[in-house]
């Protein structure tokens, strides 16, 4: 029965300490959350830990969660904070302006040869974006989140998200122009 309950009901139960309801939320959201973290954090070996810390933070903060945003949006905002914390720990002198290593999002074998050069360039460009721009790009263009939700996830304003997306689009359109079909 728990499996069929919506996030908000499960979250309310988890607020009162129902660990079985929380476990359903973990099973429901962990795979997508891991994917999001992997797309925005360079070392895949750390991503499982970031996801675990995100859920622990969610459990701790649930009693004060007021349901002003969707539970999923709130979870992504916690994951975003945990990712930023991990990036800061990883590169204490840097300002999160770039991520040197490749992000682990691999194309399948059949597509690899055909798109290798473009995908490598796309990888490179996405990797070099500052964290907020990279996260905003994925959340908007792949996860299809509205600007308001992205703003909640990234703890910023809709205007800032719009600006980030605009600058990212301009930059990608310029740097990847040679691959334009």
């Amino acid at each position, binding site marked *: *029965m728990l499996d*069929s*309950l*919506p996030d908000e*009901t499960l979250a*309310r*139960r988890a*607020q*009162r*300490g129902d*660990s079985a309801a*929380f*476990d359903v939320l*973990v*099973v429901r959201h*962990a*795979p997508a959350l*891991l*994917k999001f973290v992997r*797309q925005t954090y360079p070392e895949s070996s750390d991503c*499982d830990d970031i*996801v*675990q810390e995100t*859920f*622990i933070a969610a*459990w*701790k903060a649930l*009693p004060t969660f007021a349901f002003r945003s969707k539970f999923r949006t709130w979870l992504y905002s916690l994951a975003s904070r945990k990712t930023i914390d991990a990036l800061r720990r990883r590169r204490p002198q840097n300002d999160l302006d770039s991520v040197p290593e490749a992000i682990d*999002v*691999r*194309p*399948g074998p059949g*597509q690899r040869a055909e*798109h290798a050069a*473009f*995908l490598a360039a*796309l990888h490179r460009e*996405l990797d070099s974006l500052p964290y907020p721009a990279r996260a905003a*790009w*994925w959340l908007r*263009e*792949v996860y299809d989140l*509205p*600007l308001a939700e992205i703003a909640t996830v990234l703890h910023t304003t*809709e*205007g800032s998200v*719009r600006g980030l*997306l*605009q600058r*990212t*689009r*301009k930059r*990608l*359109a310029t740097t*990847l122009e040679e691959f*334009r*079909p």
Partner: protein
Amino acid sequence: MRTARLYSGSHVGKTGGHMSTAAEDDYEATAESAAWIAAATRRFAGLAEADSDADPRWAETGSALSQLRSGIAQRISALPRQGTLIRTARPGIKVSHVALAKLLTSALAEPAASVAAAVADVQLTITDRALSAVHIHLIGIGADERDRTYIQDGDALRADAAHVLREAIGDDSSAEITAVWDDLVVVGP
């Protein structure tokens, strides 16, 4: 896999908020100029998704997910919830809202099941340390013809809840009890 989105004026306009026309035009122009890259990113993510779906570590029974679940379960078991205390009819005796919600959920499970329903949640509202409202969230199970209406079954469950409350916290509970049918779960053939 998703198909590419069209960056039409109306679509972008929805996200535009308080933008001026010039800013909106610029936003739209950049969206259009990068639409093919966005589509490629989605294809790219789709391929990665296929990979990760194929990765048994992250299947529902996969080892990584199992490990994550058990790690989280272990950590949160050390972080129990603090309940809000509710006054009872007997001076000096209080009951935690966590315990009372559990008691109601458990006590209503059987009568709910007997009318093809399940208790999804019991929410308690507490005002000045007294229970002021109880919201019972119900789910209908199956689409078979019912002997009574949802309203009648909801009323019966409200009466059951009132009985449990009287037993648990005493006769002076004036909490308003509401029953809400949130959803209907239809099990496949």
